[in-house]
């Protein structure tokens, strides 16, 4: 969303003490990606709408008390951004610890082991253990679809599947039910995925899922490769940006 008084010329922003030029309307994450500055993200997907929900890409902006999500914050002239302060690092580790504690993420028996965004980030932030008790909520596996499975134990509620299904495939099979800790991804009106009249079996949700929550029935432990860039490329070809 472009602010009303958006300047039309190039903007200079300082990120981690280096100055870069950016186009008006670009987000801080856009600039960082282009310049090779690593900011961890989980719920962001190029090509679909931005939700700013995982809170991993939070950054510090000088003069702003609040931490802001890089994915949803538009560059402003002479902004001074910190992407990797100790405060941010501490928060990122905490976010990942909370995510691991929330459901049953047991890497060793996961189809996405070694191909998992959540796991990669845990390694990246040096999360050598989770200080919170694991919560073990009651989550099921829906194996009714003939090609894919959804294992809610692995789901981190990033809603990439929901947004991709709605905005790219146009099927809107996936949505969210419930509140807070009890919220779950559902197919249609909370039905078995296999009986969904809206699902086109396109598999885009499976490609964009960052963990082993959505997977191909043929895959076994460690071999479910994901390809979220497929959806980003598709939307880029259609000339749309999230």
């Amino acid at each position: 969303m472009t602010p009303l008084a958006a300047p039309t010329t190039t903007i200079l922003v300082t990120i981690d003490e280096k100055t870069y030029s950016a186009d008006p309307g670009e987000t801080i994450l856009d600039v960082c990606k282009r310049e090779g500055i690593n900011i961890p993200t989980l719920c962001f997907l190029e090509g679909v709408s931005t939700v700013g929900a995982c809170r991993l890409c939070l950054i510090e902006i000088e003069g702003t008390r609040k931490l802001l999500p890089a994915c949803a914050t538009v560059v402003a002239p002479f902004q001074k951004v910190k992407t990797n302060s100790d405060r941010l690092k501490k928060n990122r580790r905490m976010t990942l610890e909370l995510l691991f504690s929330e459901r049953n993420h047991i890497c060793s028996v996961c189809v996405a082991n070694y191909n998992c965004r959540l796991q990669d980030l845990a390694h990246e932030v040096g999360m050598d253990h989770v200080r919170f008790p694991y919560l073990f909520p009651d989550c099921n596996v829906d194996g009714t679809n003939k090609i894919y499975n959804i294992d809610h134990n692995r789901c981190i509620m990033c809603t990439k599947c929901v947004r991709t299904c709605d905005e790219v495939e146009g099927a809107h099979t996936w949505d969210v039910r419930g509140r807070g800790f009890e919220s779950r991804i559902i197919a249609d009106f909370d039905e078995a995925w296999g009986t969904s009249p809206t699902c086109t079996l396109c598999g885009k949700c499976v490609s964009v899922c960052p963990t082993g929550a959505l997977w191909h029935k043929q895959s076994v432990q460690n071999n479910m490769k994901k390809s979220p860039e497929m959806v980003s490329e598709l939307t880029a070809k259609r000339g749309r940006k999230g």
Partner: protein
Amino acid sequence: MNLAKLNDIAAATKEKCKNKKRVCVCAGAACISSGAIQTLDSMKKIVKEKGLDKTVDVIPVGCIGACHQGPLVKILPDETIYQKITPAEAALIAEKHLAKNEVVKSLLFATGAGKESPVNSNETDFFKKQRKVVLETCGNINPESIEDYIAVGGYQALYNILSTLSQEEVIAEVKAGGLRGRGGAGFPTGLKWEMVHRYINSTKYVVCNGDEGDPGAFMDRSVLEGDPHRILEGMAIAGYAVGAQKGYIYVRAEYPLAIKRLETAIKQARVQGLLGDKIFETDFNFDIEIRIGAGAFVCGEETALLASIEGKRGTPRPRPPYPAESGLWGKPTLINNVETFANIPKLILIGGKEFASVGTQKSAGTKVFALAGKIMNTGLVEVPMGITLREIIFEIGGGIPGGKKFKAAQTGGPSGGCIPESHLDTPVDYESLGALGTIMGSGGMIIMDETSCMVDVARYFMDFCMNESCGKCVPCRVGTKQMFDLLNKICTGQGSPADLALLEELAPYVRETSLCGLGMTAPNPLMSTLRYFREEYMAHINDHWCPAGVCKMEPAAQLAEAHS
């Protein structure tokens, strides 16, 4: 509608009531639940039977304030309030007070034992220190009668601005009044209006946030039930100022009476040409629709509320952009709380300068509080900003019942904090309460005495936040759950110093990383009780003992529960 017609309605209504006594039977939700409708019906019947209806009007009114003594009956113009009136006692009042002008002393509204109750209720301790702006006519007029509202000066402010002020001048007046958002955060209202006004767009919206969700808070409900036209007028004025033609009132489904009265009020206003096209024969068009919430606390957060109005799942989104820039359906949207809008007509009528003469320098005007918990006089009070908590609790509220000792006052509900005895002389304003680690909030004030365990209180509010978290962002969704579990552990005597340390690391994290206000403020009850009542936490952890005797301690669980 034009000024002459407005004046005619006011004059005719006044004429009808001239030299008559007015029996106001409180028909707010609290009094109805203690039998006010029966009282009202029997009062009407008796007045008719006794042939008093030439000199007496019996009307249902909105909240009179002293909810703990309902059903309340107020006699105007004497300002006499009778408490806990049954149908039989209604007959007695009719016979004595209405027929013979004799006060029924035994039924008079009383605020303390041993004291003689004044005949004029405004002289009682409960009302004496109150200052009514928002509730000015609530409890004196029939909320289902637009004529009643017009007779007390209603819609005059709307006429005034439409006929004499530019949009900028209205905004300048609101700014001069120093009014700040009564939803709790205290953002300057005039500034917000100016922001929405500044965005150039042919479609703009005005939204009234009536999704009052704090446990124990009922200010907005009382205003909506008792004086709905005041809100409509306030919204119309805002609509004119920011350049909107459409307004939405978002009310929770748990407030059926408020919804019913709002519906009636909107219909009446449309019939009278006070909503709709060409209001007061000007080019200003404005209409209002009600949207009913589905009971999610998070929908009190503005972006979640807007999503809900649009028919989407009620979840917040990152700000900026703020609703002023991109709100309902991406259009510039002004969103204010019920009480904020209720302040507007009066502010316009008396002028910003006069409005700002009440209250403190930075917090102008009055604030409505819903007193609840361990306090003598529970109910609805409106006080000037800057009054001390001690005055509210011990003078207006009448102190703690049963000879118990005061422990803490909780303001701001699940987003607020607890204030201990030592800070009771703090003036009530946005900044002072903020400095104590709590917030003004929308006006819930829960009083706790020595029988409340503060760890248990923190757990209660955390439970609330955990259940009301929308689940969108990680810190709130999982953080509140983990904080609740840790608090639960402490409350059951299983907590360790390590648990407390983890809690103290998690709480500020949730506060600084959550997506919306719900998560950002969810740790407040925990952090403020830790700040003022740390010794209670330590007693639970180190001595496995709850000083207030509330928490039940369990033996170390893991081994005892092992299967056999």
